[in-house]
């Protein structure tokens, strides 16, 4: 019994850490830029495949991939924002119209990224083994790579949280999320902040992809699954709330692990039920205003 409880707790922490990480990225893009980026999961997928290629072709450790992928994904997100969403924003009549058209544009991105990946990596399942020796914690057994992924997910999320609350740029981002017009009046370069937020969102997705590749098998069509989980977490925590996404990620991680323990077939159903109930009862989420 004790081991089962411990199993569920640590299992919940591991998936919760990953969920929090991917949700924070999405939340940042929506909360500040009002782009509900459904191609978010595709960045995760690319992160995972890039790590796989680096590991199997060049023998580069996934932990070094974190450092390589980070800046590349940031630039990728930055450029995509400039090329597509910046232009779309300038043309939209209202913020609601922009939210709808940017959602559709990100569907376009989803198709593009996913199919480029299918052309490069083919549709097969891929995976590699890295640090897959077992570690026993008080009787509950986990592979080392899962614990390392959890550690990094927590470190990345926390450092991001500190960046948001302690630095000047972080404060500008939060101000822009709160009220873009006033932030602009106060001297925040809103276009730069929006581009940085999108870049940071892509960066978080890329890093999550690197961590996910250490634990699970991957295929180019896996992105949407993660996008959906990220959207559910973000709705649970409140659209646009970073703290909400962090907490929501762990809540969903625990629920998922518990439900999987009862009946593995029910976990996705449980996610959707929570999602729908949340939207019906309190659409603004746990931490929403």
């Amino acid at each position, binding site marked *: 019994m004790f081991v089962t409880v411990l199993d569920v707790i640590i299992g919940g922490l591991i998936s919760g850490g990953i969920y929090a990480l991917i949700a924070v990225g999405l939340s940042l893009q929506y909360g500040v830029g009002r782009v509900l980026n459904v191609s978010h999961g595709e960045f995760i997928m690319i992160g995972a495949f890039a790590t796989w290629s680096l590991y199997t072709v060049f023998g580069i450790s996934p932990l070094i991939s974190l450092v390589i992928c980070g800046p590349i994904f940031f630039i990728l997100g930055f450029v995509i924002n400039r090329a597509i969403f910046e232009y*779309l924003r300038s043309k939209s009549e209202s913020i609601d119209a922009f939210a*709808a058209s940017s959602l559709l544009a990100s569907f376009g991105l989803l*198709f*593009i990224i996913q199919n480029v990946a299918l052309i490069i990596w083919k549709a097969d399942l891929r995976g590699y083994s890295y640090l897959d020796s077992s570690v026993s914690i008080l009787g509950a057994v986990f592979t080392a790579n899962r614990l390392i992924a959890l550690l990094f997910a927590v470190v990345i999320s926390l450092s991001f949280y500190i960046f948001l609350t302690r630095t000047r740029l972080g404060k500008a981002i939060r101000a822009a999320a709160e009220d873009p017009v006033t932030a602009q009046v106060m001297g925040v370069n809103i276009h730069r902040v929006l581009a940085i937020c999108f870049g940071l969102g892509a960066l978080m997705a890329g890093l999550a992809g690197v961590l996910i590749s250490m634990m699970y098998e991957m295929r180019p069509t896996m992105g949407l699954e993660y996008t959906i989980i990220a959207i559910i977490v973000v*709705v649970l925590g409140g659209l646009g709330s970073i703290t909400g996404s962090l907490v929501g990620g762990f809540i969903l991680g625990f629920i998922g692990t518990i439900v999987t323990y009862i009946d593995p077939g029910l976990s996705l*159903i449980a996610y959707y039920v929570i*999602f729908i109930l949340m939207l019906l009862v309190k659409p603004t989420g746990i931490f929403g205003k």
Partner: protein
Amino acid sequence: MDSARVIYKRPFSLGMLFLFLILLATMPLYVQPYFIILLNTVFMYIIITLSWAIFSGPTRYISLASAAFFGVGAYVSAVIGQVLSLPLFIATGGLVSFILALFIGLLTLRLKGIYFIIFTFGVSELIRHFILWWEAKFAGTVGRWVVAVDHTTVYYVMLIIFILALLTAYHIRRSKFGLALRSIGEHEEAAAHIGISVTILKTITFAISAFFMGATGAIMATRWTYIDPGIAFNPLFSFMPVLMAIFGGIGQLYGPILGATILTLLEEVLITEFPYYYMLLFGIILIAVILFLPNGLVGLIEKLGKRGNKG
């Protein structure tokens, strides 16, 4: 004022439409069977896109629940297709989707904008995963066999559903009902203030559009002869109508039809040999249309038409 009325005033266009329908009705008599199968797919997308536009066009509520209504229709024909006659189970498929849409519509009244979009997507995926789980747990299967119907019959059923959907869309656009829907799209609070029963109107229109999707799902299942939740509730059936309608342009009735036809034919040409390139191209077209053609092909045609008149 709006296209429907303009068409109405031009008997020429109406006559053309009539001739075109006669051409479509006699098609199976003189074309290759392959062409009929292709037309069935084209019709499937046209009907889903057109009925999506009946609700989402004027109200500007973007629904991603099309796959749910389509899939429910498909499952109805899998479950009762052997028992009931063809017209009966097709109508039942539509009716069950109609009722489901009434229910979803009543639930989602509070949700607007982005919340409505992700809610409809969530509902659709929930139904898919629930049926997947149910079938594995209680029926002990993954998919179901559907009673087979020959291609010509499928074609005529599709044609009838298409004509019904077109007539419905046309009449809604021309009526007070359609005007009220457009006013919801313009400014919902104002619409409610001038005495439009926003709630009832939205829900009923949502259900009407779901009816046609359900009926299409029911007939399409007989063409596939085998369905599972992955086929019937494929999320692409939710995305495609949105993309096709936007590509064609939702300002006019013929926009969604044009968009669905062109993209389905493009799919047919590309998908067997270059499936990934097709979806890649699809993504590029989508982004290009959103960035540069916000009113779709219809907007482009109107712009060119105006330019032509001036010159």
